[in-house]
């Protein structure tokens, strides 16, 4: 039985239920990931991060950059697939995002997308220097766009550069905090050597998981080739054209493994996790936060009374080995797209889109999938020089 003094938590007989508010979120970020507590231009406590961590925060939590008057988020902007071949009869479900799209007459063409390569040109300060995340606690319902505008203006009035800031709007209740929990899970699993994502391509009608983490031998290869610094969110592979990576690989023998998490603040995720269990792809299924109460069948990522992550993986789930093998193949192909995301569209099209008769996106998908991983790595390395 735990009875701990916690200014932001409620005490139950066998658990602590933390209220995720501005203060507790700051503590979680500071204590678990070492992000520095600083003062924002208005004298309130904020969090300072490197440009790389800020990119991850925006990508997964959704927090917008204040580089311009109206915010820009990386969340949901860099998708490649919304369905994975392993769960959809061998078919990949492609969607514009990382690679853009434009319509000319009755034809769809590839276009500059939301890859970091192009974002860096659109928002030159996004990937450079330290960033400060301002936490704004909502008192009433406010238009997020207008809140961003107000903050942008006020930061300028303080003679500060808005492009150094991101703005996280926080509601007072536990609701709408799933994205924050996904970020926490992502950082935690990155530290454990997993590649992660929160925009999980999945099966049609099977419920899209909130969060997935992948243990894969590709991680070491990507580190050795300087595409990533260490295990990271998948989209970060496309930032190799901007960030310099000097990490060292672990050189361990690794078997492909999938982990799935469901973030909940006001309900439990048992229903979703049971669906994932039936499918047999993930060897670890867990809830994130979820009122802090662990279910026997699944794991739980929660916080102790000092806001430190406490992860219990729960029982090892039985998996379908054929499905996992197929998924490993899909995953390898999936990573190839984030690798070529480091290049400008002209170079990508020059190599993979040559026919005028076939759909451009279809040519890209088929040809990238038909090119070996090593050849893709070499092509992107050459293209980035």
């Amino acid at each position, binding site marked *: 039985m735990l009875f701990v003094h916690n200014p932001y938590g409620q005490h139950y007989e066998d658990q602590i239920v933390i209220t995720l508010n501005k203060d507790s979120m700051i503590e979680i970020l500071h204590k678990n990931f070492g992000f520095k507590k600083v003062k924002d231009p208005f004298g309130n406590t904020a969090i300072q991060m490197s440009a790389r961590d800020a990119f991850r925060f925006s990508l997964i939590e959704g927090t917008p950059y204040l580089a311009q008057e109206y915010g820009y988020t990386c969340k*949901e902007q860099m998708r490649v697939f919304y369905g994975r071949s392993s769960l959809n009869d061998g078919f*990949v479900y492609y969607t514009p995002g990382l690679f853009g799209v434009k319509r000319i007459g009755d034809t769809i063409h590839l276009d500059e997308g939301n890859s970091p390569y192009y974002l860096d040109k659109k928002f030159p300060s996004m990937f450079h220097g330290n960033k400060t995340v301002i936490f704004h606690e909502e008192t009433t319902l406010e238009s997020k766009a207008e809140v961003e505008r107000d903050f942008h203006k006020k930061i300028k009035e303080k003679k500060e550069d808005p492009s150094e800031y991101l703005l996280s709007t926080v509601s007072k209740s536990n609701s709408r905090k799933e994205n924050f929990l*996904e970020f926490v899970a992502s950082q935690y699993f990155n530290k454990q050597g997993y590649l992660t994502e929160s925009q999980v391509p999945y099966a049609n009608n099977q419920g899209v998981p909130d969060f997935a983490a992948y243990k894969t031998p590709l991680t070491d290869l990507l580190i050795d080739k300087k595409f990533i610094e260490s295990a990271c969110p998948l989209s970060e592979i496309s930032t190799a054209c901007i960030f310099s990576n000097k990490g060292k690989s672990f050189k361990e023998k690794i078997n492909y493994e999938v982990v799935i998490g469901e973030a909940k603040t006001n309900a439990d995720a048992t229903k979703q996790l049971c*669906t994932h269990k039936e499918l047999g792809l993930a060897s670890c299924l867990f809830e994130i936060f979820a009122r802090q109460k662990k279910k026997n069948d699944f794991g739980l990522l929660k916080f102790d009374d000092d806001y430190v992550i406490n992860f219990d993986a729960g029982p090892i789930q039985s998996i379908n080995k054929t499905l996992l093998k197929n998924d490993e193949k899909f995953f390898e192909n999936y990573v190839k797209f984030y690798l070529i995301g480091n290049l400008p569209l002209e170079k990508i099209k020059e190599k993979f889109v040559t026919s005028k008769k076939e759909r451009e996106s279809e040519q890209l998908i088929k040809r990238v999938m038909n090119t070996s991983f090593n050849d893709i790595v070499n092509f992107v390395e050459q293209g980035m020089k």
Partner: protein
Amino acid sequence: MAFGSDFRVKYLMRDVQRIVTKRLSEEGVENPLRLRVFDEDAGDNMLWDKGGLTFTTDEDNDAGSGDGAWYVEENWIDLISKKKSKFKPILVIEGTFGTETGNVGDAQKTKLSHIFELPQRKILSAILMPKLAEYYSSGKNQNKLPPTFVVNGRWMKSMVMASISLSQKWNCETMLIDAYNKQQLEELVYSLAKQQIQNNETNQEYKKKQIHEIMCEMSLFVDQYAKDFFEKSRRSNYPLSVLDLPMKDGKISSTWVAKIHSDDVKAFGVTTGKNPKAKSRHRNGHRLLGNAQELMQITGKNTFLLLPRWDKIDLKKLHDNQGDSKSQKEFTNLVDNPSLDILTMDDIDFGNDTELRDEFKRIRKIGIDLDAKLPGKDSDKLKECCLKLKWGLYSKKFKINR
């Protein structure tokens, strides 16, 4: 929390606002338009006068909410609810990139209910959606080889037609804007901002020109379809619209038309609970409401949603609030609207054809007992029965008991 395409729409609107603000700033003026947009449903679902993006129906029920709106800081009275607000809505957007992920058919019509109440308030509105998108899915059933199977997803022509009719009825435009053509939205917002800065003839003309171009593109898109619409409904199997509806007195209704849909009551979230996935998998109330609104708008007549797989017990369950919360909202909007109504098999006079009535009864029971999708052979049989019903009504073999 998995975000859908709404997030992309909401940031596309921010992007447009940013570009317009920059353009105006380069001209030395401040953008008078503000942008109301939230990243989560809670804000969208609040009423406009409370700071949200929802308007009411004539019957004072909450209608579908928008994804964002441009507005000005000016006192405004809602022409329908009479509620006062300090902010006047100028352009409300409902958006989706769903055509990229399978929203290529009837489901698009759910968008209609999000803007349906706006033109009578003299608020401009638009559905922002790719006019043409590539939709990747499994080609297994088409005997295609992996890894890709792709089809084109386009705006539904009937929905575009309904939007044009709605605009004409209220003399206020409900538009469809291609989400891949950001510049079109940008020019529209820019013209609206210019008019707010100075409401002179030049700016009025410029705004009219932008709207005219959008409406022309919509008209061109449905040109042939619109010409054929009424004939096609009477001569072809699909759509399952009945435009000459025989009533109890044997006469064709001058005020009502009908649209047959084969959904059972699970569409509004009424399930037995046997299958936990049934509630979410069969949620189609939104689509049914969109279909009814669409036909009403195109024909200018009141519209029955004719549901031959339902009986009066099913209807009562919804009147007793047994659907899920979202579906109950759509159901209320349907039955409270004097121009729309639901008919079940109990409202159909099948004459001597008890076989067709019994077949509908049988299929209804299977759907309810299974709490799941119908088996293939019953699904095929249901399609056949719906066609028999359509042609039976056109030939006056069947009648509506009203």
